[in-house]
């Protein structure tokens, strides 16, 4: 016992000593990993992997690293990237069910396919060249067709609606890009432990690609080239967000009360693997289980009615009294502090430091009674659809529907005391969908509204055929009590050159997701700053304010597709007509009508010739009489010549085949 205590004392001393050393030389490379798990209202589980590599600036630290990936460092230096975000997404984030108001959804819900944006620290005229090179480099690095973003029809330069105060930004999406393991493997290669150890070992490919939503993201911030400010080096943040359906065993889905029982889950049932210790290179290696504010309040009310216990139960982890239990007791419980509001989320922290191969970590989360709750939603629910029919023209409509909550009011009261809400809409339209921006109409609660009253700011850059896509940025100022806002834009469908159609042209053409942004409504997790909680990078990331975002659906526009064999058909028919005309003209020029008539007459009298012979044969057949054979030498001569001709043609064909085939 004494020995154990002495070891503990030693450990504590060592740890504190280590931390002192750490503070002294604060500029070192760091890597941390974390996994956040959150039960979702619709019986699914959100798993959010978060890896962060930090490197001090080159000026003080040099260009040789032991943790930071070399390829990313070289990329930043070669193309002078200030900030970059690349996401590969499969599936669509279900804003209505999985929430749209928390930091994770506003950061990690991405449009399907590939989305890339980057800002560069270069003069204005070099930005496009840098972007093109960057897309090619990333394409090679991530085994994806990001290089298709190189063409100027594929990217745009939003001014303020995508990201506030960003100059030299380029933005592009590829919504048809299929995301699979070949993109994940190079992404994992950037981690020092890859998927050999630590949390990333959980990424069993079949399990994570079976999920309902899969978004792999890489976010890079560097202020290496910023000479004025104290440079903080580079931060590479890699996240993988998956929404998984836990495997439920047996019945027990519906409880006696008729409520749907939430499925219990464990790490091994979600991923098919367990965590066998941390990645030894990471500074922090934690797993968090997050309970959403609505769930926490729901749990509190149920526990109040049933057990008369308070939030204390949750705090003290008295599992027996609660609606759920976990197999391991957390290292720490972090409660969100959010003003005077009742709703606040809870985070249970588990550290991987004490687990190893022989003692793998497998967290189990069991529900004991049915609970229903709903996630926090964004103030307006956005959706987008097409109107009109036919192959000529149509209209895009973006509808923003209020969720009927007034909890966001405090952040959006203007000078006159009237509650208002600012909404930014960012929409990129490919050039072959020719949008008439003057047809923009805004309906508030199904009434047509004057544009000037609603629109605070607008920026439109019309598309240029085969050169650049159309870009529209609108800042709307809406009254808080509005229930339904609809924006409509009319467009004509353009024609493409036959070479420009993709192989599956009949499938239709995509209009990229519009981005609806609520710049005044910021979301973050409110934690006590002084509690040394901020040490964990995932928590400090969640504590950063970020505006609420909403990506709308991708629209599919059917365009007129030509018959791709048409050029040949046209050639054939034109040539045939010309040939007919030419032939008949030539015939008309050289025919001797009177001679032919005379010959015909004489033939009638003779009744000879081939046709005559055939006719006589036929008539003989009809009459049932045997025909006297025509003069033999003539027929033999004819057949001889015929055979000769056939042989000649066959010979030409053979020679042709021999020489040209």
């Amino acid at each position: 016992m004494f020995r154990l205590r002495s070891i503990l004392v030693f450990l504590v001393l060592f740890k504190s000593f280590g931390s002192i050393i750490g503070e002294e030389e604060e500029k070192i490379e760091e890597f941390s990993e974390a996994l956040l798990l959150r039960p979702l209202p619709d019986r699914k589980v959100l798993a959010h992997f978060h890896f962060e590599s930090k490197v001090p600036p080159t000026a003080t630290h040099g260009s040789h690293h032991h943790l930071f990936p070399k390829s990313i460092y070289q990329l930043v230096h070669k193309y002078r990237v200030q900030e970059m975000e690349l996401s590969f997404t499969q599936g669509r984030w279900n804003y209505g069910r999985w929430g749209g108001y928390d930091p994770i959804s506003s950061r990690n819900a991405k449009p399907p396919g590939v989305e890339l944006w980057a800002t560069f620290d270069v003069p204005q005229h070099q930005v496009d060249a840098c972007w093109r090179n960057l897309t090619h480099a990333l394409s090679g690095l991530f085994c994806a067709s990001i290089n298709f973003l190189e063409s100027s029809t594929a990217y745009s330069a939003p001014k303020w609606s995508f990201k506030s105060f960003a100059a030299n930004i380029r933005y592009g999406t590829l919504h048809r890009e299929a995301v699979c393991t070949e993109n994940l493997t190079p992404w994992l290669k950037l981690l020092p432990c890859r998927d050999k150890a630590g949390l990333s070992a959980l990424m069993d490919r079949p399990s994570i690609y079976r999920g309902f939503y899969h978004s792999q993201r890489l976010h890079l911030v560097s202020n290496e080239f910023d000479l004025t400010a104290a440079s903080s080096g580079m931060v590479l943040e890699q996240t993988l967000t998956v929404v998984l359906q836990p495997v439920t065993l047996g019945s027990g889905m519906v409880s006696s009360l008729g409520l749907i029982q939430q499925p219990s889950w464990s790490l091994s049932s979600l991923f098919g693997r367990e965590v066998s210790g941390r990645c030894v290179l990471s500074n922090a290696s934690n797993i968090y289980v997050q309970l959403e504010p609505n769930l926490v309040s729901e749990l509190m009310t149920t526990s109040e009615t049933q057990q008369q216990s308070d939030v204390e139960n949750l705090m003290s982890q008295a599992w027996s009294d609660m609606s759920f239990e976990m197999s391991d007791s957390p290292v720490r419980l972090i409660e969100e502090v959010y003003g005077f509001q009742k709703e606040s989320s809870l985070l249970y922290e588990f550290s991987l430091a004490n687990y190893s191969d022989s003692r793998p970590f497998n967290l189990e989360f069991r529900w004991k009674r049915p609970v229903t709750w709903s996630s926090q939603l964004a103030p307006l629910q956005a959706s987008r659809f097409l109107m009109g029919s036919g192959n000529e023209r149509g209209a895009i409509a973006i509808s923003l529907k209020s969720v009927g909550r007034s909890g966001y009011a405090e952040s959006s009261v203007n000078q006159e005391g009237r509650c208002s809400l600012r909404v930014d809409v960012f929409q990129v339209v490919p050039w072959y969908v020719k949008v008439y921006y003057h047809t923009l109409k805004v309906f508030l609660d199904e009434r047509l509204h004057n544009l000037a009253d609603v629109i605070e700011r607008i920026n439109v850059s019309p598309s240029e055929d085969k050169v650049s896509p159309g870009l529209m940025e609108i800042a709307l100022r809406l009254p808080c009590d509005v229930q339904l806002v609809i924006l409509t834009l009319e467009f004509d469908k353009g024609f493409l050159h036959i070479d420009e159609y993709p192989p599956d042209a009949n499938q239709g053409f995509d209009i990229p997701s519009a981005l609806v942004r609520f710049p005044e409504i910021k979301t973050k997790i409110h934690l006590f700053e002084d509690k040394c909680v901020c040490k964990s990078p995932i928590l400090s990331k969640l504590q950063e304010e970020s505006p609420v975002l909403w990506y709308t659906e991708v629209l599919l526009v059917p365009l007129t597709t030509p018959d791709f064999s048409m050029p040949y058909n046209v050639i054939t028919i034109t040539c045939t007509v010309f040939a007919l005309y030419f032939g008949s003209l030539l015939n008309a020029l050289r025919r001797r009508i009177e001679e032919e008539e005379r010959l015909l007459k004489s033939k009638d009298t003779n009744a000879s010739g081939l046709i005559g012979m055939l006719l006589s044969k036929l008539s003989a057949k009809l009459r049932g009489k045997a025909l006297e054979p025509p003069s033999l030498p003539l027929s033999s001569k004819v057949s001889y010549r015929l055979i000769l001709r056939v042989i000649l043609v066959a010979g030409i064909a053979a020679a042709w085949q021999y020489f040209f085939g």
Partner: protein
Amino acid sequence: MVEISVTATFSDPPNTKSEEEADFYPNTMRKTKPGLKRLFLTLTVFISFLIALPFLLKSIEIYRAPLPFDDIDLLSTEMEKNHLMFPCQFQAVFVNFDDDITAVNELALLINSHMQKLTSENTPPCGTCGNNFTVAVTIDSNSSCIHCESGNGNGNGKWQCGVLNGYDKMNDHDENFDDYLESVLDSKSKRVYTVVVVNTKQEDVRVVVGKYRHAWMVGIDSVEKAVEKMAEIFIKVFVNAGKEEGSIRGEFMPIGADGKVVLSFSLLNSDPHDWIYDWDFKELDEILLAPIVDALRPVADISLESQVLYHTPKSSYSYWDDTRGSYIFSTKDLPFFVNSNEWHVDASTAAGGRSKVLHFVLYVPSAKECPLKLQLPNGEISMTNGFISPMWGGIIVWNPPACVENFQVQRLSRQKISSEDLKMISEVFMGQLRQLFGLKSESLYVGGFATSVLLTSEKGFAEWELDVLSRHHTCFNLLQCGTTLGSLSRLVQSLPRMIIMDEIGKQVKYSLEAAKLSFGNVSLGYSDASAVSSRKARALAEDAFYHPSMMSVSYYSFEHCFAVYSPFFLPVSLHVLLAVIREWKRYKVENRKYLAWRVKRESHVKSCR
């Protein structure tokens, strides 16, 4: 019209010539000449079609820039025949040989003939001097100073007599003497290879090759033996850099087409659970590798990068050897040592497309295979514990000190490789780099006549070695250029309907010009200029070969052309052809009829008389 007149004659038979009438058979005779109008018309159409045919073929012809196939063939055959011989200048200096030497000219000829013998033993590899050298001999004695040059030497770097008088420290400090000789000879600007033979009252003969472009021999030796040794040093050391047949061939120079080399250093911790080692790469870079990079600058533009990787087990097998107390992997396992699945020693993104990347890997084995040692084929343990893979790079297995100690204590903390170890490692890396460039890394050269000491430069490469590299680089570039252009011309000739852009034609032309310029510079002895132009030739040849328009499927097939034009030309040409044939036949038949009638009439007229 002709028919009308013919029918008119038929329909209106003259009554006066009733006998004639009786002899006239309308099926075989006619009274008028057959008309040529329709025949002329059809023939005109036919001929105009024939005339238009070349224009049509010209208009549908695909564009092919003319490529100088003959010049390309000439270049490649020239490169194969190994005609690239660099001119070299040698100088032999005999000091204190008062009595023995009488005829300087004979001495020069003797050296020359020995050298010829050495070079003619085997066909000289590319990048050597071949027989294209000049030898100058100087005899420096107390009393006289005789100088003689064979061939067209221009008196470059002539030995100043008497500079070695009173210099008697040549045996004590080789380095100092080397520097002294350099100050005398100034080979840097003159590029003359010198061997100095000093006759002292010494029993054993010492042969030392310096860091610059000279060597010296000290000791009593007969002139004949000195000449033999001298010739060997000239040919085997200065020209061939001590290479033998069977070692890495000089044609494989790990230098990119743009003259750039990226040295990518990777430290692989095979299992970080056991221990994590880190290196101070800055130190390695600045102190140990920077001089090499500087030294190699005339040959290649070298840049360095580093990374540390974890969880990188090797993929070959090793076994425990009790007697040696270590794990052993043999040379047979080397092809499987590099684990390409787990070792992500990626190509650099900073390097351009044509740079050559050489990987240098420091492998730290895990605890369960430590210490790990390389067994040579002769059963001994390798001193360096490393190996190279030509054109890829080198690998060193570094056994951490924790491996023999109780490693449990140091677990999970990041440790630095000590600077002594790092120095040792960098020396091995330097040796591997020399080997990758085709040079030896021993400090002794054992020849047929003498064993010479090679002084090692702190820069890693001696001046004469850099000369060898530069010559090989030029040769390799020209060889590559020749093979690339050769395969381009073969490809182009095998696909007759492939579009060739003008740009490719231009690139090929410029590449050939640069190659020619390089050849010219080689024969004139401008080695730097020839290296530059050879590099350019190779880069342009590769530009042409990898031109995007060549890479894409730019094959405009004959079938396509036929399908487009046949719907019009097939029926029309049939029409025209048939019309011509018919008219021609008809004309012949009618003409015969007319002739028959004329014969008849003439005979009739005769009979009337």
